[in-house]
C-alpha cells in the first residue's frame, strides 16, 4: 500500500478525519495539500452539522446552503468527504473498517465525545494497533476544565493572549479573529507529522492530546518568564500598550495615523543608527528639537511626546509614501493593509500566489488561503475546493473499502450512508 509519489510528500498517508471547524480542519487541510489522503467523516443525520462552518457565511454570490459555506470551502481543500450515520451499528462497522486501513485518526470534539461513542483511542488501537490518534480540543482531555466549551476567543482570553493585546487605560482589544484556531491547526499538523515520523522509525503509533489553551499559553512570549523568574506580573502594571515594544525596548515603535480615512503606518526603530537616519529625515523636513531624543533612554522617557512628533510627520503622507521613504533608509515600516490592499494589490502576495484559486463543485472558482512556504522537491497542490456533503461516498465506499454496490444501495436505503 505504501507507494510513495515523489512529487507529493505525504502521498501514502491516509487520515480518517473526524475533525472540523478551523482548529481541526486547518490541520488536515495542510496535510491534504501535501498529498495525504484525508477522508472527512460527516454525519448523515445532521447533514454535516458537526461542522458549524458547513453552511455559514461568507457566501459567494449570496447563495446559501450546506455546500456553500465560504469558510468550509477554505478549510477543506483537497479532501474527500463521506457521510455516514455513526450512531448505527452498520455505520460504526464501516468506520472501524476505515480506521483499520488508516494511518491517523484526527478529531476535535470536546473531551469524552469520541469515547462515549466507542471511537476513543483505546478502541481504535484494537482495530489498528499502530494507529496515530490526535485529539485537539480547547482545554485538552485532562484537568479541571476538560469539559469546558471553547472557541477561538475563549482560548485567547483564558490563555493571556487577549489581555496582551491593547492600549493603556482601555479594555483589552484582543485579537479580532480566531488566531488560535489557525494556530491550533498548525500545531496539530506538526504533532501529526511528528507522530508519523516516530512511527516510520519505530513502528509505534500513539495518542496525542493537543490543547489549544495550552498552546496559546506558551505563545505569550517573554512576558511569562518576566513573571516566573523576575516576579513581575503583567496584571499588576495594568493593560500593556502592545503597539510599543518592551521586549526588546524600541522607540519610536507604534502604529501612527496616515493621510486618509482609517489609514495607518507601523514603524519600528530598532537601533541608534536607525534613529539617526529617521531624525535626519525629520530635521531636513523642518522638525525641530530632536536633540532631546538622542538616546533610547531619552526616547522611552518621552515616548508619548515622541509619538506625537512622529504622527505630525506621518499624518501628512499616505501610509505607502511613508513606508517607501522609510524602507529606502532601511527602517522597518509597513502600511496597515486592509483586505483588498493585501490580497488583491500587494505585489509580494500576488507573486507568491498566497491566495490560489480552487474549483468547488457548486460554487465554481473561488480563492482560498495558500501556504506560507514553498518546497523545491514536493510542491503543495491546492486545486480542489471543499468537499460537498457525501461527494466521495461512491469512491471511498466502493474503491477504498471495496463494499459491494448492492450492499451500498441497501445501506443507503436504510439511512446508514
Amino acid at each position: 500500500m505504501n507507494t510513495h509519489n515523489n512529487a507529493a510528500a505525504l502521498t501514502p498517508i491516509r487520515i480518517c478525519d473526524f475533525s472540523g471547524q478551523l482548529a481541526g480542519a486547518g490541520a488536515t487541510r495542510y496535510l491534504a495539500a501535501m498529498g495525504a489522503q484525508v477522508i472527512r467523516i460527516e454525519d448523515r443525520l445532521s447533514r454535516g452539522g458537526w461542522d458549524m462552518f458547513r453552511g455559514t457565511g461568507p457566501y459567494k454570490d449570496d447563495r446559501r446552503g450546506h455546500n456553500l459555506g465560504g469558510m468550509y470551502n477554505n478549510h477543506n481543500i483537497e479532501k474527500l468527504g463521506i457521510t455516514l450515520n455513526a450512531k448505527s451499528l452498520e455505520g460504526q462497522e464501516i468506520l472501524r473498517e476505515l480506521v483499520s486501513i488508516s494511518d491517523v485518526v484526527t478529531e476535535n470534539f470536546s473531551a469524552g465525545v469520541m469515547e462515549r461513542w466507542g471511537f476513543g483511542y483505546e478502541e481504535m488501537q484494537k482495530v489498528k494497533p499502530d494507529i496515530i490518534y490526535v485529539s485537539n480540543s480547547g482545554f485538552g482531555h485532562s484537568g479541571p476544565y476538560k469539559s469546558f466549551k471553547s472557541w477561538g476567543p475563549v482560548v485567547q482570553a483564558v490563555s493571556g493572549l487577549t489581555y496582551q493585546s491593547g492600549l493603556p487605560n482601555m479594555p483589552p482589544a484582543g485579537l479580532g479573529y480566531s488566531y488560535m484556531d489557525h494556530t491550533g491547526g498548525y500545531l496539530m499538523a506538526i504533532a501529526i507529522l511528528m507522530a508519523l515520523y516516530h512511527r516510520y522509525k519505530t513502528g509505534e503509533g500513539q495518542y496525542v492530546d493537543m490543547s489549544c489553551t495550552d498552546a496559546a499559553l506558551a505563545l505569550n512570549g517573554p512576558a511569562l518568564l518576566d513573571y516566573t523568574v523576575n516576579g513581575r506580573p503583567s496584571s499588576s502594571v495594568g493593560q500593556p500598550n502592545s503597539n510599543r515594544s518592551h521586549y526588546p525596548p524600541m522607540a519610536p515603535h507604534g502604529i501612527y495615523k496616515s493621510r486618509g480615512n482609517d489609514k495607518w503606518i507601523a514603524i519600528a526603530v530598532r537601533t541608534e543608527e536607525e534613529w539617526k537616519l529617521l531624525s535626519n529625515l525629520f530635521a531636513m523636513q523642518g522638525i525641530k528639537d530632536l536633540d532631546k531624543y538622542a538616546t533610547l533612554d531619552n526616547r522611552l522617557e518621552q515616548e508619548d511626546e515622541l509619538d506625537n512628533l512622529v504622527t505630525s510627520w506621518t499624518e501628512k503622507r499616505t501610509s505607502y509614501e511613508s513606508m517607501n521613504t522609510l524602507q529606502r533608509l532601511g527602517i522597518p515600516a509597513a502600511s496597515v493593509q486592509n483586505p483588498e490592499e493585501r490580497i488583491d494589490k500587494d505585489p509580494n502576495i500576488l507573486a507568491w500566489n498566497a491566495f490560489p484559486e480552487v474549483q468547488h463543485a457548486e460554487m465554481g472558482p473561488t480563492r482560498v488561503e495558500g501556504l506560507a512556504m514553498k518546497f523545491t522537491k514536493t510542491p503543495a497542490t491546492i486545486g480542489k475546493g471543499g468537499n460537498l456533503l457525501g461527494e466521495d461516498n461512491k469512491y471511498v465506499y466502493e474503491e477504498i473499502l471495496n463494499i459491494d454496490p448492492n450492499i451500498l444501495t441497501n445501506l443507503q436505503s436504510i439511512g446508514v450512508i
Partner: protein
Amino acid sequence: MTSVLNDIHVLEIGSDLGAWCGKLLADMGATVTKIEPLSGDPMRSYAPFYKDIPNKNSSLYFWHYNTNKRSVTLDLDMEEGRELFRRLISKTDVVIDSLPPGQLTNYDLGYTSLSKINSAIILASLSPFGQSLPYSDYQATDLTALAFGGSAWSCGYDDHELPPVRCGGNQAYHTVSHFAAMGIMTALIHRQFSGEGQFIDVNMHAAQNVTTEGGAYNWLIAQETVQRQTGRHASVAPTPPTQIKCRDDKYVNIGFPARTEEQWFQLLAWLDDHDLVGNLSDYLTPPNREAIVRRDPDAIKHMHLVMQAVEKLCQTSNAKDIFAKAQELGFQWGVVYAPDEAMEDEHFLARNMRIEVSHPEQERFFAYPGSPYKFELTPWNIKRRPPLLGEDNDTVYAQELGIDSTNLTELKSQDVI
C-alpha cells in the same frame, strides 16, 4: 522515554524569525545547535533580563526561545568559519536559517552548495518576504509584519480614531516558525521515503496573510471588508459587545450569551438568582443573531435588554467565578486572564503547563511554559536550560568534528570561534 526527533541534528542560524521553530524541534528531542556570532545572537541583548541585570547569558527573551538548544560561536565572515560550517553540514539533517535573504548564498553556503556536501540536507530559510520577491530587501519586525499582513487591520477598538492594535507576544515570529516546522517535518517524512533533502522558502508576510480568518474569507468570497471592534471578531456589520467587566474589574468574554433555547432558560434562571430577569421573561428564545446583524429593531432591542442584564449579572461576582458558573451551564464564556494569571490557574497547573527547569549557574529552578501537545509515548520535555554563549564549542568542534586542541586554540585565538 524516547523522543521523536532524537536522531535529528539541526543547525539554527539567524535570530528572531527562526528561534521558535528551533525550540519546537528541540523540545521534541532534536539536537539543535545554534550558530552564533562571537558577540552572541542579537536576542541575547533583548530585555527582560534576569534580575534586570543585562549580560550575554541573562536575557529572559533568549531563555524563552532557546530551551534544549546547544550554542557554538562561529564567524561566517571568515573563510575558516565557513569551512567549519561545511564540515558541520555533513553531520546535519536540517538547517533553520533566518539570516537576511541571500546571505547564506553570498557565503557560498546556499542550498546548492550545501546539498553537494550532503544531498539529504533540508534547508528551511525563513525571511520577512520570501527569498527573491518584491519587498524581499525590505526590513520587518513583528509589529510591521502584523500590520502589513492583515492582523492589525482586524485588531483594536470600536472607536476608529484609536489606532489598530498589534496583538502581543511576538505572534508574527511564532506564525512563520509554525509554517517552517510544518515544512521541516513534511520534508523529513519525504526524506524517509526518498532519501532526498530539499530547500524550503518560508515567507513571514505570506504566513500572516493566511492567518487572519474572516479578514481574508469575507474578501475572497464576497469582496466585503471586516472592521475592527473592541475585544471581539472584526466584522462586516457591527456585532454586539462580548467583553463584560466583572466585580473585580476583570473581564469575561461571553461570545454570544446564549445560543439555544435550553441555554436561554438557563441564563434566565441564573439572572433570576440575582433578581435581574425583568422584562426578559417575555422572551421564549435567545436573541436572534442573524436578525441583529441585519439590524432588525426588535432583535436589537431584545439583545440590548440581555446585555444590560448580563452586565449587571457580571457585577455580582469576580470574573473567574462568572467564567466557572457559565461553563458549568455549558456556555462558551472565557475569563480574560493576564499571562501570569493563566500560569497560576489550576487547570494549567494540572496539565503541567508550568515546568521547572534547572539553572545550575543560579543554583535555582525557574518555571517555563509547558507543552502545546501531550504525546503518550514520546513526550515533549525540557532537559536543559538555554545555552550559555559558546557553551558547546568543545563538544561540537573537538568531540564531534574531531578538531585537535592545537587547532582549536588557534581557531579561538583567530576569533573564528
